[in-house]
């Protein structure tokens, strides 16, 4: 079975300028949110991007969505760099790449009826005529499990889970190929998360969708992903098919992360690897491996040399000097 790559990220760097060099503010500082990240999204699969706050995973999603401009590196869609698109190509790209964000309360315009909200992408792209769009809105509401007479209502009449369904309906309205899901269930009640995850998986199968699933919740990522990348402070530290990462984690950070997950089973004795200290200040990264100050397996080399992401077994990449050797 040939695997088709929908989108490729190559050596992506995204830096933000914080503050300006000036009379009172001293030197300009750069926040290196994403630093040399590369991966490919395979059609029909879910790529899980995992990490804690500040690791850069959301920035990657937003850069793919063209909300940020890359500082360096390329994002290739159908072979072409998205930064070099003309406006027509950008519109076509937008038709094919959509998103669902974390906050169901901030994602809906409180003054727009949800029917209009779902219709908007179609309206902007000149899809169908007015009647056709209204019918499609009803179709989409049905697909996401809402009733068609909800179209006339306003967002405040819906619960968090229902709002996410509305966002999913909007994302699907143009038949996209790729959907970026940025923490889509993190803000929902636990009992609703399962509903939405099931919905996402059903839709993926039905419409042959490709997902980039960004989350900090490892159990959810394990459930839905085919391939997983673990990020720490702007870099990918480990990348492998889902079962390999969870059954055989190699990078010390991945191992600590997995051991810290609390399984809801009181009889399981869980020994978490407790990481000392806090995450380094992203504005003042030291030389060498960015994980050095918390790593339980650190050695002298780690302080001087930055580890590269290298393949240690088929399809399993790790960025750690101890594991990959020099």
């Amino acid at each position: 079975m040939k695997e088709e790559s929908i989108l490729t990220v190559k050596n992506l760097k995204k830096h933000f300028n914080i503050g300006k060099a000036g009379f009172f503010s001293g030197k300009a500082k750069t926040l290196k949110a994403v630093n040399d990240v590369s991966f490919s999204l395979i059609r029909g699969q879910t790529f899980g991007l995992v990490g804690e706050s500040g690791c850069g995973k959301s920035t990657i999603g937003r850069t793919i969505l063209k909300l940020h401009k890359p500082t360096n590196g390329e994002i290739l869609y159908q072979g072409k760099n998205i930064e070099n698109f003309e406006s027509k190509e950008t519109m076509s790209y937008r038709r094919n790449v959509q998103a669902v964000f974390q906050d169901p309360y901030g994602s809906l315009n409180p003054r727009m009826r949800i029917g209009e909200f779902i219709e908007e992408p179609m309206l902007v792209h000149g899809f169908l005529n007015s009647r056709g769009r209204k019918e499609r809105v009803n179709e989409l509401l049905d697909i996401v499990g809402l009733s068609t007479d909800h179209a006339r209502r306003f967002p405040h009449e819906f619960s968090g889970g229902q709002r996410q369904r509305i966002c999913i309906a909007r994302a699907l309205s143009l038949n996209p190929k790729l959907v970026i899901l940025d923490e889509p269930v993190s803000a929902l009640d636990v009992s609703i998360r399962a509903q939405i995850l099931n919905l996402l998986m059903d839709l993926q199968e039905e419409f042959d969708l490709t997902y980039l699933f960004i989350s900090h919740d490892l159990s959810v990522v394990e459930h839905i992903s085919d391939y997983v990348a673990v990020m720490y402070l702007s870099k990918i530290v480990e990348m492998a098919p889902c079962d390999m990462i969870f059954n055989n984690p190699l990078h010390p950070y991945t191992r600590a992360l997995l051991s810290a997950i609390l399984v809801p089973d009181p009889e399981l004795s869980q020994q978490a690897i407790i990481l000392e200290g806090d995450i380094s200040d992203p504005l003042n990264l030291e030389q060498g491996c960015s994980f050095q100050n918390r790593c339980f397996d650190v050695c002298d080399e780690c302080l001087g040399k930055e580890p590269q992401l290298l393949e240690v077994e088929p399809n399993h990449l790790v960025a750690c000097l101890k594991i990959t050797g020099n």
Partner: protein
Amino acid sequence: MPKSNKIWVHLRNAPLGGLAIFFLFLIAAFFAEYLAPHSPTDQNITNALRAPCFFEGGTFEHLLGTDELGRDILSRMIFGARISLLVGFVAVVLSGFIGTCLGLVSGYFGGRIDSIIMRFVDIQLSMPYILIALALIGALGPSLRNIIIVIGITSWVDYSRVVRGEVLSIKNKEFVDLARIAGCSTFRIILKHILPGVANSLIVLGTLMLGRIIIFEAALSFLGLGVQPPTPSWGIMLADGRQYLTFAWWLATFPGIAIMMVVLGTNLVGDWLRDTLDPKQRAAVRGKR
């Protein structure tokens, strides 16, 4: 939760006094010709300086008395309401339009254009508005039309600041990002996604500014820079009545009371609108974990 439920609840708290005053003056302004017992400009020197009806020397012909030229105070007040409210509404709309446009552009695009516009705001705010008005009226000449223009041009500043602030808080919301991701043009984003969010604050601000502008107009007319006699304006009536304050107090007092009541009314309504529109917005948008 049905929407109508919420509207009823908020109407229950409406400031009846404020609304009543407001509508009273509105009706007076609209139907001045039918309500006023006399013409506001008819002079009758022999009838000058008559006291209001319940005082010594007063008659029911002139309920609030007459001024130094024998003109009926009540009629002049009713026609004066028309001037005040006309200037008020038009200037609010004019300054609101200018201020909103500049605030939207400033807030949404940020960067240089934001700095430039905000510097304009700072500069204008640092100059006493009376001075600006004086200079402009001096250049354009005093008239009803010019006073509306002058007030409109000097009052935009408040709107742009408020609008800019609202835009800054809205533009980082996810639904604005989603609009961009869907391919919406900047114009559509500002019009359909940002402006409606700003509308509530604009309504409240407009209502409160109405009172300020009415006072502003009265002040300019008082100084002789606004509408010219014989057109009755509360400001002019105040100016004229000033010298008679000790023995014919009614010339200045009634217009003064009228100004106070209209402004009080608009402030009460504005406050109520602010309370109704904001928490509803907040309750509707924010959920709880």
